[in-house]
């Protein structure tokens, strides 16, 4: 039985889709069978980030409505042959996903794949709740910034109340993934520190992904950042986060920026 991992955040644009692609590809590279499911109905993007946009024929809604079989809708990655994508549909009908339909699809995926990553839409409404509904674990993507942390806290509340596991009195394993971390700004005390974020959310840390040009480059190329150039800082951070997700006990090192001469002269201090 595979594990179902929802990648969620509440706030939009924090890096859920980027993280789903990067973590999924990283796990698949180790030989595990991985399915990425795009739950962002109406605003699908995971296909683009994965470079599969021209190969989409059927989608999640087709499978739920019975117009396509799951095996017809799954797109196999051209680079890693254990990695698959189930795209979202572009329909504007937000009710196209039913809870029973999603449950059936997730059950089938769980029986075939080692990992099922669900890329949640932003918000805390129906779409986000369906994406987390059948999850065993959650990756809460958070930027070190007040509104993102607040939304993460609300998502944590939903994970503990509205998921199948929660309703059956079981734990859902939660991990915080801090993305777009800017070490220089953190050093100047302009950004919430990792300790601040963890203390406020009290959820264990999966990893720290630095703000990086390589992420943009990877999305331009249509490839998860962990597949384009596994040596850049963002890719390395995602690869390590993926190993932690698989249970490896790997310490997290907070990216560190030496204070510049000017900072020291002006006595700017990190708090």
């Amino acid at each position: 039985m595979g594990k179902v991992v929802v990648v969620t955040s509440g706030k939009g644009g924090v890096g859920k889709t980027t993280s789903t692609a990067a973590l999924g590809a990283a796990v698949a590279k180790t030989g595990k069978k991985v399915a990425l499911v795009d739950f962002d109905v109406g605003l699908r993007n995971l296909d683009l980030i994965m470079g599969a946009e021209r190969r989409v024929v059927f989608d999640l809604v087709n499978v739920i409505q019975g117009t396509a079989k799951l095996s017809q809708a799954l797109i196999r990655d051209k680079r890693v042959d254990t990695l698959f994508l189930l795209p979202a549909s572009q329909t504007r009908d937000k009710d196209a996903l039913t809870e029973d339909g999603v449950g059936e699809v997730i059950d089938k995926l769980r029986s075939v794949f080692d990992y099922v990553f669900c890329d949640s839409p932003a918000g805390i409404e129906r779409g986000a709740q369906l994406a987390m509904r059948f999850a065993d674990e959650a990756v809460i993507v958070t930027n070190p910034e007040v509104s993102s942390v607040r939304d993460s806290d609300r998502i944590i509340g939903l994970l503990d109340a509205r998921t199948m596991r929660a309703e059956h009195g079981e734990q859902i394993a939660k991990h915080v993934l801090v993305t777009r971390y800017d070490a220089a700004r953190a050093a100047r005390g302009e950004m919430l520190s990792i300790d601040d974020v963890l203390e406020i959310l009290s959820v264990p840390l999966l990893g720290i992904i630095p703000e990086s040009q390589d992420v943009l480059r990877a999305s331009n190329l249509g490839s998860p950042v962990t597949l384009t150039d596994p040596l850049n800082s963002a890719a390395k951070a995602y690869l390590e986060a993926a190993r932690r997700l698989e249970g490896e006990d790997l310490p997290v090192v907070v990216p560190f920026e030496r204070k510049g001469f000017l900072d020291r002269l002006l006595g700017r201090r990190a708090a």
Partner: protein
Amino acid sequence: MNVFDLFRRRSSAPVARERLQVLLAYERASRGQPDLVSILREEIMAVIAKHVQIDQDYLQVSMDRGETMSTLEIDIQIPNKSAVPLAIAG
């Protein structure tokens, strides 16, 4: 104060942390519960309506949440023409 203080910007992260801690403590406690301010508003409105007829818009209820103490502010405007108690008027 030395000359460098002029250039020193107070770091904003500690302020952010503090604001979040206060806000989230409140939001967590009130999760899943109906909103206190709107309940108060409704009940105050009902009490007033027993005696004076006022429009919904004349009642303002707001809450300023502090760390250990909160201030509930109730502002009721009674137009002079309706100031006659219902009991007497009726």
